[in-house]
C-alpha cells in the first residue's frame, strides 16, 4: 500500500535561514509527487510537482524540491525563509496510471518562522 511519511511534525526556523522539509514515500514505482501549502483556515495551494524528467523541480514562492529515487524521497527546500512562509506543508503522491489520480497525503509539517 502506498504511504507518505513526513517525519517532522513541527519545524521552527529563523527568518532568513534555509529550510528543508522531508518527505518519504512507500510505493513500488515512481509516483507523481506534490507539495502543497496550507495557511490557517485556508485551502491547500500547490507549490510544485514532479512527474518526470529533471529531478530538481522549481515551484512558486521560491521553493524547490528534489526527487531522489534511491531514497524514495521528495524533500522541499527554500534557501531563505520569509515570515510569510509560516504555514503547514503537505507532501502527496499519486499512482501513475490511475484514472482517478487518488492522492495520498502525509500528515503535514507545521512551519513556524521566528522574526
Amino acid at each position, binding site marked *: 500500500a502506498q504511504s507518505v511519511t513526513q517525519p517532522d511534525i513541527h519545524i521552527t526556523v529563523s527568518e532568513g535561514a534555509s529550510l528543508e522539509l522531508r518527505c518519504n514515500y512507500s510505493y513500488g514505482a515512481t509516483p507523481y509527487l506534490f507539495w502543497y501549502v496550507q495557511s490557517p483556515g485556508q*485551502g*491547500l495551494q*500547490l507549490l510544485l510537482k514532479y512527474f518526470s524528467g529533471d529531478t530538481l523541480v522549481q515551484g512558486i514562492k521560491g521553493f524547490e524540491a528534489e526527487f531522489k529515487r534511491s531514497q524514495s524521497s521528495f524533500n522541499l527546500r527554500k534557501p531563505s525563509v520569509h515570515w510569510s512562509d509560516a504555514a503547514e506543508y*503537505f507532501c502527496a503522491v499519486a499512482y501513475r496510471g490511475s484514472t*482517478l*489520480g487518488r492522492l495520498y497525503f502525509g*500528515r503535514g509539517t507545521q512551519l513556524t518562522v521566528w522574526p
Partner: protein
Amino acid sequence: SQTIHQWPATLVQPVGSPLSLECTVEGTSNPNLYWYRQAAGRGLQLLFYSVGIGQISSEVPQNLSASRPQDRQFILSSKKLLLSDSGFYLCAWSASAETQYFGPGTRLLVL
C-alpha cells in the same frame, strides 16, 4: 482560468441537524471532483470522489453522502450530523488523473 468555490465558509450546526455543503468549479469541463475532511491533527481524509455526473464513489463508510447534480457542482450532505463530523471540509478538482486543485474550504462545527 479555473476557479473553485466552496460555501459556506463557516458553519455551526447542532447535533442531529442536516448538512449541505456546496462546491462549484469554473473554467473547465468534466473535472474529477473530490471531497476531503481535515480534522485537527489527523491530516486529510478522502471522503468521496466523482468522475462524472451522478457517479460517486465513497472512500469511508459514514453518515455523509455526496451528489453531483451538474458537471461542475459537487455537494456534500448529511441527514443527521454527529459531533465527530466537525472539521474542515475541502473540495478539490482535477482535469486529469494528476494534479488536484483545492477550494478555500468550509469550517464545520457541530455542537
